[in-house]
């Protein structure tokens, strides 16, 4: 078997907001086609870690290596890096002044320089894929939360990223809409997309995750395959966390 390609490596990452130290010496590795799920209580630093990976937050020190290249905010063109690392947000952050299709084709046209025709073709394909083939010309305000999040996923995919980051993608959804978004993410994972997912959906972590990372108070407490983490957690804190939510 060939060695899997390493998509993300994080070494000794530290991050503070003012006096508040939110990430301590984080080490993380994400291989190609892996779905890595970050779990932990609110405030454990998992979202901050995710946001450091596409440089919406800047680390204080440590290394972030994306596809073999160590990326530094002051020497790298972060816009280029971000094109490879798509992100889906808790609150969707769709562009309200653009239609569903407009949201999806904006960056491919403006950033990648795709022709409008090409972008529309690809945009429609992606919207069909996430089950929104009948919503091209609708404005986001007319969509349900689940539909909005699927548009957001299509929008990120339109840049043809190598890695997708999901920051609590279902936390802002009504319970009955969570399933459709998780289903879309599951399909994406099965197609081989490299994904890092911050979520409170333990069912998803167990079923779709290849690797689960439990964080607490800015540190990685324990990580492993889903079965091991959920069935035989080694750390007391992991056990306590899982007992509290399951």
């Amino acid at each position, binding site marked *: 078997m060939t060695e899997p390609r390493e998509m993300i490596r994080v070494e000794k990452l530290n991050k503070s907001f003012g006096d508040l130290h939110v990430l301590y010496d984080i080490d993380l590795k994400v291989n190609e086609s892996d779905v890595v799920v970050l779990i932990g209580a609110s405030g454990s630093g998992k979202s901050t870690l995710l946001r450091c990976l596409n440089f*919406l937050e800047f680390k204080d020190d440590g290394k972030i290596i994306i596809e073999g290249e160590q990326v530094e905010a002051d020497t790298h063109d972060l816009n280029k890096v971000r094109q490879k690392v798509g992100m889906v947000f808790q609150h969707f952050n769709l562009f309200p002044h653009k239609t569903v299709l407009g949201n999806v084709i904006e960056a491919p046209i403006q950033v990648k320089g795709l022709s409008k025709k090409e972008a529309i073709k690809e945009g429609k394909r992606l919207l069909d894929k996430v089950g929104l083939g009948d919503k091209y010309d609708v404005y986001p*305000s007319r969509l349900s939360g689940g539909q909005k999040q699927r548009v*957001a996923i299509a929008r990120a995919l339109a840049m043809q990223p190598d890695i997708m980051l999901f920051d609590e993608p279902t936390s802002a959804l009504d319970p009955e809409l969570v399933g459709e978004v998780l289903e879309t993410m599951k399909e994406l994972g099965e197609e081989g997309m490299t994904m890092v997912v911050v979520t409170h959906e333990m069912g998803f972590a167990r079923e779709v995750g290849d690797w689960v990372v439990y964080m607490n108070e800015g540190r990685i407490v324990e990580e492993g395959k889903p079965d091991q983490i959920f069935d035989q957690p080694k750390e007391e804190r992991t056990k306590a966390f899982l007992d509290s939510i399951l």
Partner: protein
Amino acid sequence: MGEFFSIFTGSFDVFMEGLWLTLRLSVVSLLIAIVIGLFFAMLKISRIKVLEIIADLYIWIVRGTPLIVQIFILFYGLAEIWLIPEFWAASIGLAFHSGAYIAEIIRGAIQSITKGQTEAARSLGMNRSLTMRRIVLPQAFRRAVPSLGNQFIIGIKDSSLASFIGLQELFGVSNTMGSNSFNYLPYFFTVAIYYLLIVLILTIAVNQLEKKLAVSD
């Protein structure tokens, strides 16, 4: 009443000339004011201290002095170094004035657009200026339309001050005709009607624009 009506109709041609000048003054000054306003709004949100101070200084000076003083300084004061035509002294003075208020309107509107919009755009690889141009400003503009419309109304009425440096715009016409006939009141009523009509039309236009921009709500 009959007298007023005959004055209103009899002065129509002269007032049309005044109206034309008022409209030119207003449109020219407001276009320049939008550019100035955008520029200083960008300085204010630049997060570069010295640029912010420059913008604050500009806004402070404009808001802190009467418009008529600003126009007089431009026209009479600067005339010693550079003779600036009345039309341009008034247009630039009005633009300089409205620009400060427009800058604040635009800045407020930009800052009301949530951080998530910028983050989403940046996460797609869009750079700062692209994000501003394609994502933030269009939304900010929409939000600013009612306040901008209000500021345009103020700008149109403020253009009456141009009469004090000799421009025969609407108010200048009414003032001249009043003094020529020693009968001011009918002419002031007449000019009031013209201003009311302009503002009415502008109000309707702004409302229409708001409706049109609301399609995405």
